[in-house]
């Protein structure tokens, strides 16, 4: 642990104190937001490898939150495995929460395509076969099962929709844009294999243009949570948000930014920094410890050129798997050069204090991005 003694980390925010905490373990990210009055929002989910439960729930329980009552909303920015693992457990344990999911997968026009993807026999059977193979599709299916069982119909996030409207806070979705709905579903359906051959994990289509970007308005603060939205010449993600922004929603610049898509070049857009953010904003980024590993050195340099206040939840690489167990198993793991995919439970926590400033605290492997040296 860095920065604070353990007791301080387990302290709840003040009743009306805004808090944003980003969890990231090298594979996966999740955010919890205290919007005041003891109410919390969870965005996405990852599994805390040490506690074997969603990192967000572990944290909220550690600081004494009654998750069954105080989590009022859960937003699933997209279905990819690194943003959705454990989301069905959150649905089970947070019955008071209203769920929102990206409308890119579920629109009235696309409902039949959606069913083909997630409900029809081949895909459903595939999801079942993939249930223990880290496929986000199967976890998404589990989420829908839990919500249906509970009679808790999800809401849908799309461009310029007000998702949450509370006393001191509004949460808007700035994406996905309706022009990409068709492509988003088709890109996934295209991966469903024939009924012969090997079982294939459904991978995340690239670029990610169907992710839900969130814009939070709280008193004098504006907060931009970039999810995994990407951009390339053919598929517009950030360009559409910026070129079609409404002054009634984006009425100021933000001082706080959860950097998009693990800090990658494809998640970057110059105009995010010039048109949506104040100079030198507080930035949080979660790494991606698979192929390709993100952020790259060039990404870190670019982000540091925009702000001196960027923090990363962890930045470990290829830590050898060394859990004591059966000697034969350990020998085989060593022979296979086995490394951890996920890093230890780590987070960056930002709380706004009475002076209007943000206080940043780090836990586990989290650190300031500028501290990473080669």
């Amino acid at each position: 642990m860095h920065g604070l003694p353990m007791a301080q980390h387990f302290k709840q925010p003040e009743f009306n104190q805004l808090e944003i905490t980003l969890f990231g373990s090298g594979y996966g990210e999740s955010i919890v937001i205290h919007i005041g009055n003891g109410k919390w929002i969870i965005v996405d989910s990852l599994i805390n490898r040490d506690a074997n439960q969603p990192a967000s729930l572990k944290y909220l329980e550690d600081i004494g939150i009654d998750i069954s009552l105080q989590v009022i909303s859960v937003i699933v920015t997209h279905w990819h495995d690194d943003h959705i693992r454990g989301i069905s457990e959150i649905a089970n344990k947070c019955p008071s929460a209203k769920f929102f999911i990206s409308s890119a997968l579920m629109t009235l026009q696309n409902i039949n395509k959606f069913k083909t993807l997630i409900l029809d026999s081949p895909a459903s059977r595939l999801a079942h076969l993939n249930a223990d193979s880290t496929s986000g599709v199967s976890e998404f299916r589990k989420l829908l099962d839990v919500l249906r069982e509970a009679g808790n119909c999800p809401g849908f996030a799309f461009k310029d929709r007000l998702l949450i409207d509370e006393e001191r806070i509004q949460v808007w979705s700035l994406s996905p844009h309706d022009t990409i709905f068709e492509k988003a579903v088709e890109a996934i359906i295209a991966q469903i294999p024939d009924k012969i051959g090997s079982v294939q994990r459904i991978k995340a289509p690239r670029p990610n243009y169907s992710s839900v970007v969130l814009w939070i308005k709280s008193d004098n603060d504006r907060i931009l949570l970039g999810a995994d939205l990407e951009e390339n010449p053919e598929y517009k993600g950030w360009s559409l948000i910026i070129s079609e922004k409404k002054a009634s929603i984006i009425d100021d610049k933000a001082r706080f930014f959860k950097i998009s898509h693990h800090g990658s070049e494809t998640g970057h857009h110059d105009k995010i920094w010039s048109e949506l953010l104040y100079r030198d904003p507080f930035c949080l980024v979660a790494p991606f410890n698979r192929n390709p590993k993100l952020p790259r050195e060039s990404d870190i340099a670019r982000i540091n050129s925009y702000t001196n206040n960027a923090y990363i939840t962890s930045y470990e690489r290829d830590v050898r798997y060394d859990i004591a167990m059966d000697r034969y198993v350990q020998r085989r793991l060593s022979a296979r050069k086995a490394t951890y995919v996920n890093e230890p439970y780590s987070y960056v926590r930002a709380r706004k204090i009475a002076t209007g400033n943000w206080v940043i605290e780090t836990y586990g492997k989290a650190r300031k991005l500028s501290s990473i040296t080669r």
Partner: protein
Amino acid sequence: MTEANLAIKSDTTSELYSDNDPQNDESYFGGSAIRQLINKTEDGGRIDSFLEDDSGSTSSISRTNLPILPRRNFSEMPQSSSHSIIKQKWTGYIDSINGQEFTAILSDSSGKEPDIKASFCIDEVSEGDRHLVSENAVFDWILSKERKIHGQIENKDLLVFRRFPMWKKQDLEKESKKVEEFNAWLTHGTTF
């Protein structure tokens, strides 16, 4: 020659099986256990009738707290079967292929251990599965211990690629029903 003598002569294992051992399987006769018991006796331990022969008479060695081994009639024992115990199993998928090697992301099937990334050689995959090796192909990695008929222990390292199954009529009916249920729920309960 008594059964005990036969067992000792045929022993190749190095492990002691007892009734208190949760991994004990009664179909195996622990030859080495007998040897260890005798060694202990020679060291001064007391063993009494831990083995019986077919006539029911006991050996002259004294009883002690050492494990009691089940009586076995060798003629009834299977001669070709073996028994596997899975030590650990992961399920995962191929993340990338580089020449004759591939890298996979794997989840422990018990859900108790963290995910790992590991490297494999394609020639370790059985020939029948090799055509299934491709990016995102799902497979199981199984480490097991096989106990053979005479007690030998063999460690095994196995890669099994999953094949897409044939559809059964019941599966299709079950899924069709689910589709209808979901459709009704999404159509009438969803707020867009």
